[in-house]
């Protein structure tokens, strides 16, 4: 029997959703200050409107939803997915008011893409967008990478057992420290340290490349945000192709690979456990799969004679594939070059890299390295069982912060989520092909959206059918929250209507 949620359930969900949305409003103070700093008055007003809308929604819920009840698991999941939904709807206001979006659906697409660190966008005339709006685009993706719930946990929640349940609902389950709020702050400590160092490196490099100090700083900051969060937004429509520099690309690669690593791995390194990076199943899985796709793609493009020399070939292939595998979405080739220069084989191999994706509990998306590691180990275990005597007990373990023995429950969990991702990729691809896009291009784009990567081969555009836009939005949302929270929200809605 499905139990209809009681008034208290609605109140507790409303209360915590309101807190997260107030957090989103406070976050908009940064682009507001940027707009004021650059005397972009129209943009500044756009942000005031959006901030006030967030406050009205958030404080309105605080006034209406008064309760002392703490969160349960299902509440946590609903708050996480519900917060993302409302944060998207309200976070889209500055995009919409800027006049650069074709419709509100397009702005929802862009903001969901930002929060989920995807990086696809439908904003038009990006090269004439204000500094304030550019700050918001990149801040969205930086905040989304850490998790907007993590932000709220850090600043707005004051010690509640239920906080962990919202944290998990956002697709993160690592507890770096015993207290979840301390964990959220530890995530921020790591991220902000990287922000300072990464922006400095990119900014200085930008000045060496001929950028003025102000542009070099802001481009450095935004490119860092795009790389670390594995978001892939950049301030110019040319993306990181803008810089034409191998040094800038190397810095980007280091940041995006670091951003794609599990926060638990970062924390282990931070606290002195340096060996972890060599032993961790996710880093091993990442380097193995990245090496394989890079070698195969290089081989095919070398055969096709697309690039003039080995260095250019490796530089282009490794950058796009590292970007795809970390689910960042930066590129140094034109979107259509995937079709006209890389061809179907290049498209398919990049799709594979994106589909596997980054590490769990990182800023990245995709099936995740840990699941690939667990499934590979399980396969290995089965093969060993087959070739061993019947009486032999074959055990397999993997290392992620500590050694864990494989059991059926663990493998089933990894397989379930993997199958869910593959189904999502397949459904979106079918929808794309029904609209007439070639199979490999439809698959490339849907996998890019649902793995939160953001590379495009030209399918995504402001003129693509609305159904595909909605499909991609749902793909980004489901992919980022790893299904369970969104299913919990749907279940909650169903229980409200049909429960007894």
């Amino acid at each position, binding site marked *: 029997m499905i139990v209809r949620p009681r008034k208290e359930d609605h109140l507790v969900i409303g209360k915590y959703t309101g807190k997260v949305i107030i957090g989103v409003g406070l976050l908009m103070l940064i682009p507001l200050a940027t707009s004021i700093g650059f005397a972009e008055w*129209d943009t500044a007003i756009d942000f005031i409107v959006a901030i006030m809308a967030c406050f009205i929604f958030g404080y309105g819920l605080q006034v209406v939803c008064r309760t002392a009840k703490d969160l349960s698991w299902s509440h946590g999941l609903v708050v996480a997915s519900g917060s993302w939904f409302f944060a998207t709807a309200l976070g889209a206001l500055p995009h919409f008011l800027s006049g650069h979006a*074709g419709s509100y659906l397009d702005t929802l697409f862009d903001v969901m893409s930002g929060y989920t660190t995807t990086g696809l966008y439908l904003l038009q005339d990006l090269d004439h967008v204000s500094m304030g709006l550019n700050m918001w685009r990149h801040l969205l993706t930086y905040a989304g990478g850490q998790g907007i719930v993590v932000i709220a946990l850090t600043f707005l929640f004051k010690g509640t057992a239920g906080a962990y349940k919202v944290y998990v609902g956002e697709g993160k389950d690592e507890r770096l420290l015993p207290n979840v709020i301390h964990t959220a702050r530890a995530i921020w400590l790591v991220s902000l340290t990287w922000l300072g160092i990464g922006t400095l490196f990119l900014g200085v490099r930008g000045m060496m490349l001929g950028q003025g100090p102000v542009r070099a700083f802001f481009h450095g900051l935004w490119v860092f945000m795009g790389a670390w969060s594995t978001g892939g937004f950049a301030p110019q429509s040319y993306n990181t192709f803008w810089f034409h520099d191998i040094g800038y690309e190397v810095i980007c690669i280091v940041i995006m690979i670091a951003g794609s690593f599990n926060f638990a791995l970062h924390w282990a390194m931070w606290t002195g456990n340096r060996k972890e990076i060599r032993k961790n199943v996710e880093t091993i899985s990442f380097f193995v799969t990245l090496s394989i796709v890079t070698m195969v793609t290089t081989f095919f493009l070398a055969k096709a004679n697309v690039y003039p020399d080995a260095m250019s070939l490796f530089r282009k292939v490794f950058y796009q594939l590292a970007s795809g595998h970390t689910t960042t979405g930066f590129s140094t080739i034109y979107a259509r070059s995937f079709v006209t220069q890389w061809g179907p084989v290049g498209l398919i191999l990049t799709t594979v890299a994106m589909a596997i994706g980054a590490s769990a509990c990182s800023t990245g998306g995709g099936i995740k390295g840990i699941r690939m590691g667990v499934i590979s180990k399980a396969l290995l275990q089965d093969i060993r069982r087959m070739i061993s005597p019947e009486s032999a007990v074959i055990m397999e373990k993997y290392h992620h912060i500590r050694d864990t023995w494989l059991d059926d429950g663990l493998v089933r969990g990894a397989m379930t989520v993997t199958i869910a991702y593959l189904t999502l990729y397949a459904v979106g691809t079918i929808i794309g092909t029904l609209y007439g896009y070639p199979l490999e291009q439809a698959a490339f784009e849907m996998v890019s959206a649902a793995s939160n990567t953001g590379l495009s081969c030209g399918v995504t555009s402001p003129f693509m059918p609305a159904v595909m836009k909605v499909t991609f939005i749902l793909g980004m949302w489901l992919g980022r929250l790893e299904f369970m929270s969104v299913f919990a929200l749907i279940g909650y809605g169903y229980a409200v209507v049909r429960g007894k």
Partner: protein
Amino acid sequence: MRIRTLLMVLVAAVFFVAASVSVALAQVAFPPNNPSSTELVNRMNVPGDITKGLFWNGKTVTFHGEAIGEVMIRGDYAWVHLNDDAYMEKNVEEGAKLAGYNSGMAVWVPAALTKTVDTYGDYKHEGSIVEITGTFNAACKEHGGDMDIHATSLKVLRVGHVVDDPVPAWKAALAAGLMLLAGGLYWLERRTRNRINPHRGV
């Protein structure tokens, strides 16, 4: 006295001619590039066969577009990015209709030639429209496989200008109204917090 009057008339005439030329130049509609940046990226020698390369690779092209962002000088040469999209002559802030993404081409040009380009497009500026002639490289050997044009000549077709983006009155009024409402709700929340919820600060 007569000479002074004559001089004044002369100055006025010069101003009039200059203003007329500026207005005329500002209204010039530029024909689409042939080839456009989209064509440069998309047109293959044999559709579907990447081994045969791109059609325009290695050919000399003449290309015009809005100088966007900034010039990045690298020694004797510089990178300039030219957008030949729907916003080349008028951007969204100036009221251009939305017509899709930006598109353009990266141009490698002698740095000395870029001195004539005084405005680069961004939120507050519509960049100068520049015409270049040079060789198109689908994957440039000199620049790590980048797609670019190595230009040998550069000409400014239209000087760029500052763009205004005034605040509409309705937007300012909306912001003021929402501020009042948000302030009221914040006050109400603070006032009623302790009365209803004994677990303050949760």
